[in-house]
């Protein structure tokens, strides 16, 4: 059997990849994909811990995360389309009417 720590390390790596992608990528869609990667990294942790504790609520949590991620994707893509319509670009550096 694969030890728990392997899953946790993989999950941490996935999460870190997501964070890095969020910070360095410039395309809004890619940034959004990085967020999904972070969520899936978390999901892996939940499932691994659910096995460790023999507690199904970890697995149930993952389903809820997926549902929420789907809802977030629907809304997020709609917002991204609205941005594209007004600005004709998806580069986050050019979406800069409001100074950050």
């Amino acid at each position, binding site marked *: 059997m694969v030890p728990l720590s392997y899953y*946790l390390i993989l999950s941490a790596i996935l999460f870190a990849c997501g964070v890095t992608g969020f910070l360095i990528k410039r395309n809004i869609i890619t940034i*959004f994909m990085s967020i999904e990667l972070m969520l899936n990294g978390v999901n892996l942790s939940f499932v691994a*811990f659910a096995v460790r504790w023999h507690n199904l609520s970890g697995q149930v*949590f993952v389903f809820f995360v997926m549902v929420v991620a789907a809802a977030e994707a629907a809304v997020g893509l709609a*917002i991204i389309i609205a941005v594209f319509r*007004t600005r004709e670009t998806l580069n986050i550096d050019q979406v800069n*009417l*409001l100074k950050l």
Partner: protein
Amino acid sequence: MTLIQTTAALPAAPDYVRILPEIVLSIFGMAIMLLDPLIDERRGQRLLGGVALAGSLVAVVATLFQAQQQFWGSGFWDMVKVDAFSIFFHFVVAAVLLLVILSSYEYMEVQQIRAGEYYGLLLFGAVGMDLMSSAVELVLIFIALEISSISTYILAGFRRRSAISTESSVKYFLLGSFATAFFLYGVALIFGATGSTSIPRISAALTEYISGGGGPLLAYLGIALMFVGLGFKVAAAPFHIWTPDVYEGAPSPVVGFMSTAPKAAVFAVLLRIMFQIEAPGRIWLIWIAAALSMTLGNIAALVQDNVKRLLAYSSIAHAGYLLVAFASLPENGIPAAMFYTASYAAMNVGAFAVVGHFASAGERYVTLEDYSGLGRRSPVLAAILTIFLLSLIGIPITGGFFAKFYVFSAALQANLVGLAIIAVVNSAVAAYYYLRLMVVMYMREPRDESPVPAIPSRLGIALGLSLAATIYLGILPGRILEYAARSVALLR
């Protein structure tokens, strides 16, 4: 395992009363969405606004009904808990919703926004916020947080033909989901450390660990990550960068809504988590976030020329003052924090209602320049805004004074002298930029003499109510504070 075993039975009838305000708001929200395509657009604005208004009023009544002692306690297998604490926040959310709907009527017509989705999303967002304040299970907290966040992401971009509104929406969405992922990772680690997602059980497990010697590092890391996620949502430094941009671009009534109601709900979650789960070192986490928020928020606000950005930085600073209460002892800190959320909600919704009315079509007039001579062009509007600004400074006989007073004295009683000093110095600094706005309104020559459009009746009611609440909290804070103090025992 527990979830699967217990869901075999049906929930008992009182359980439904424990989520009655949420049920009411959902039904009204769905009714609005269904009515929207059926009625013609021009008449629809007012009718749908009326339905939403009725929904928020019924939610207030439902909260009153729920407040009867026999319905207190946990429902749905320890998912939600009705107590003085959750009822307090239900009231705050419902009151903010009512005021925002009242102040949206005119705004919707001036900006030519379709009303159906707007009012629907306001109500659905409020469902999430209500659930957040009564949830005692991290699964439900997560879902409620997302219901409220997703609604506000859309609302921020509601002027969808305007480039700055969509830009504010996309920034809010990306940074908000980023924060959610951190919150979720924190939940996963806490679940890993304690084997449960229910707050009372987590707190019991951690107390056991601590009394047995070493605490689990995993859980502390989890709490820190959850704090990062929730800190983003309340705009506490160093997670505040999104706030000014989003507040500047989003429609003003929506800013009034999202700078108060979701914040109140997230503070409710933070209160439950931070005061129930014993984690050493959490005080320092909050200490640093509070000091940073107050200082960065106030210093950045000094140089703003856009009134919405100014109020955004001021809301960061206010999140900092609120966090000071979180670092204090529970018996003073919790009532102080609750009182602060209520009075902050009253004055901030009011301030943004004035800003929204004055901004006019396309949100044109939002800079300090535009406000020059407002005292002459519209004495009533200027006077109302002045009272809200005085309350934001914390001048006596306004709610802001007692809010700050209780927070600072809670900090002193917890021996946080350093933090209290930082807070007091900061409120002195903050007075400068609020006063600057007042000076511009009353002492500068107006750039154009045309009178500001008269205040429509519904907006007038909203302004009157928030003024009344601000002054009531400033003159008679006793009852609210007593009520808040009673919930301390229930929270521990």
